[in-house]
């Protein structure tokens, strides 16, 4: 029987970040943490490039700094110095910029960084493995949960049993832990698929991120180190199926038509992924002896690149709620702690979800009337200082009451 203060179900980015926040070398009162995953996260780290990348907003960067992870990640990160948003028909020669955000809008600081997920995994895994308070059990699937009242208990397919004050579910959008606790979700799917891949281009992107609102959905070009960019390319489900089935040459042709010729010749240098887009929010972020984080709690449209950052905000709020309780000798899995976490995160998440859903519905449509309205709307946003500041801070993750970790303070 394994015993821990907290069991984390899932060793993907959010699960590892939660482990490091609660028990890493920078944690003020390290808790005893057990992390379980049916896969081995090592295979996502460093050498194996799987084509996935994340945007790190300013507050997420401060949190990674506070956890002692940023120095290692920074060397693999590309600063996003400029963001332009356009609204154009595919293949159109001219793409008038509706919105333009530069460093001058953000106090001279890069608003965000792009990092390939393998480097995030690498840094998080190193730190988790080095911490004496974190035990990582990989290739271990959790087969049963029993929640409360005093403790949560679970069983694994390797015939292990574990108990803890709290289970943190970082086990993804289909979250088995959430299902075991009978927490329903609401949401809808968009009949859209996000195609993710990586391209190399002849000319430098100069740290510029581009978001082109095409009729089928946003087409985002996000700068990576070297002359490379990560693409998040949204298509209607039917079209995505066709595009994913194309051979390399035809795939590149489709891609190039949307990308435009401004960065010269293009080569696809990473594998293709297709993610069906949906909006899903758990009806509660907590249950008895259970807290949901990341995709287990919410899956939002990737239009604004906020998914991973929203997960880090969960981690920061949960770590602070738990740390405040543990400082006073209170039970880290008690209903009071969980209620504090839920209050903190739910409003922020719902607001972000509603905002991105609204943007999606506004932009994924080729109706000329709508095109005119959104052109006006975004141009107004670009020219009105205060509103633009809000957009920038929202994209950089600085609205709402910030947990200490996101302000760069240890908990």
């Amino acid at each position, binding site marked *: 029987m394994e*015993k821990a203060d907290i069991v984390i179900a899932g060793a993907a980015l959010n699960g590892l970040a939660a482990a490091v926040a609660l028990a890493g070398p920078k944690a*003020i*009162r*390290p*808790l005893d943490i057990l992390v379980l995953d049916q896969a081995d996260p090592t295979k996502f780290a460093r050498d194996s490039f799987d084509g996935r990348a994340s945007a790190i907003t300013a507050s997420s960067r401060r949190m990674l700094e506070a956890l002692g992870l940023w120095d290692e990640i920074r060397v693999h990160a590309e600063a996003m110095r400029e963001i332009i948003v356009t609204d154009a028909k595919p293949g159109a020669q001219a793409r008038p910029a509706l919105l333009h955000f530069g460093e001058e809008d953000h106090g001279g600081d890069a608003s965000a960084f792009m990092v390939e997920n393998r480097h995030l995994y690498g840094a998080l895994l190193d730190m988790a493995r080095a911490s004496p308070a974190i035990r990582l059990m990989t290739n271990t699937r959790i087969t049963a949960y029993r929640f409360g*009242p*005093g*403790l949560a208990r679970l069983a694994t397919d390797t015939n292990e049993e574990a*108990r803890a*004050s709290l289970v943190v579910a970082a086990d993804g959008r289909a979250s088995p832990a959430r299902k075991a606790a009978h927490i329903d979700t609401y949401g809808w799917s968009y009949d859209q698929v996000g195609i993710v891949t990586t391209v190399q281009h002849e000319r430098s992107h100069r740290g510029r991120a581009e978001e082109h609102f095409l009729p089928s959905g946003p087409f985002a070009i996000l700068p990576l180190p070297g002359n490379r960019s990560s693409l998040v390319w949204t298509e209607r489900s039917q079209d995505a199926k066709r595009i994913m089935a194309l051979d390399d040459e035809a795939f590149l042709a489709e891609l190039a038509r949307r990308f435009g010729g401004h960065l010269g010749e293009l080569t696809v240098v990473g594998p293709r992924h297709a993610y069906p887009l949906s909006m899903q929010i758990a009806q509660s972020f907590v249950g008895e002896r259970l807290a949901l984080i990341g995709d287990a709690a919410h899956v939002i449209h990737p239009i604004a690149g906020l998914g991973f950052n929203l997960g880090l905000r969960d981690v920061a709020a949960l770590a602070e709620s738990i740390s405040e309780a*543990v*400082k*006073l*000798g*209170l*039970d880290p899995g*008690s*209903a*009071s702690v969980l*209620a504090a976490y839920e209050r903190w995160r739910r409003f922020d998440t719902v607001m972000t979800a509603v905002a991105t859903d609204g943007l999606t519905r506004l932009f994924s449509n080729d109706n000329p009337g709508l095109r005119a309205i959104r052109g006006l709307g975004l141009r107004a946003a670009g020219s009105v200082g205060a509103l633009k500041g809000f957009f920038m801070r929202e994209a950089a993750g600085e609205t709402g009451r910030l947990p200490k970790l996101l302000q760069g303070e240890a908990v």
Partner: protein
Amino acid sequence: MTSVLNARSLDPAEIEKFSKIAAEWWNPKGKFAVLHVFNPVRLAYIKEQVTARFARDPFVRRPFEGLRFLDIGCGGGLLTEPMARLGADITGVDPSEKNIATARVHAEEQDLAIDYRAATAEDLADAGESFDVILNMEVIEHVTDPKAFVQTCARLLRPNGLIFIATLNRTLKSFGLAIVGAEYILGWLPRGTHQWEKFITPDELEAWLAVSGLKQLDRTGVTYNPFSGEWRRARDMDVNYMLVAQKPGN
């Protein structure tokens, strides 16, 4: 540390019954909601004072390791369990057998080793027990002879030991807030929980401590902020207040 009757010696039906009562004690929105909201402010005060007076590192998980605590009137263990988690070797006493059984079942569920006894402070003093820290939180206003009670606590205290007392002041304001407000208007507490006549002024308490040979080290008011929904330490001791006193060393 083993008690005469631990939860394992209870029959399963009894355990289930007490487990249900325990769930009520620990429900932050249940009958004892006001205690849950009040708990952090008193826990923070105890932790701050004990770590400072016994020169303990407040940043470790178990700063109270090696200190023997007594929680008088422990109820379901709302204060006892946090002390155990902070490392205290703790005894919780309550005159109610039902409270003690409830507290035991909950501690078992949490894997906490706590010595719970259905007993009074007098029983322990007569048995010659002694403690480094005595917690007397929201208890003294319910006692028949509070002055004698303070003397009993002094007998239980080791040299340099600390006693914490939290209670309600006897003022017009406390009548309005603690009786009319909390019991009749807000319904935070069952009517009849408190008798205003039995409330104790800080000066009365300080005098009784002195008679018992204890020296008051610090005292503070505790007030409720209706906007944040939190209790905070404050200068205002008109209603709720807490204090810490020490028994002189040899």
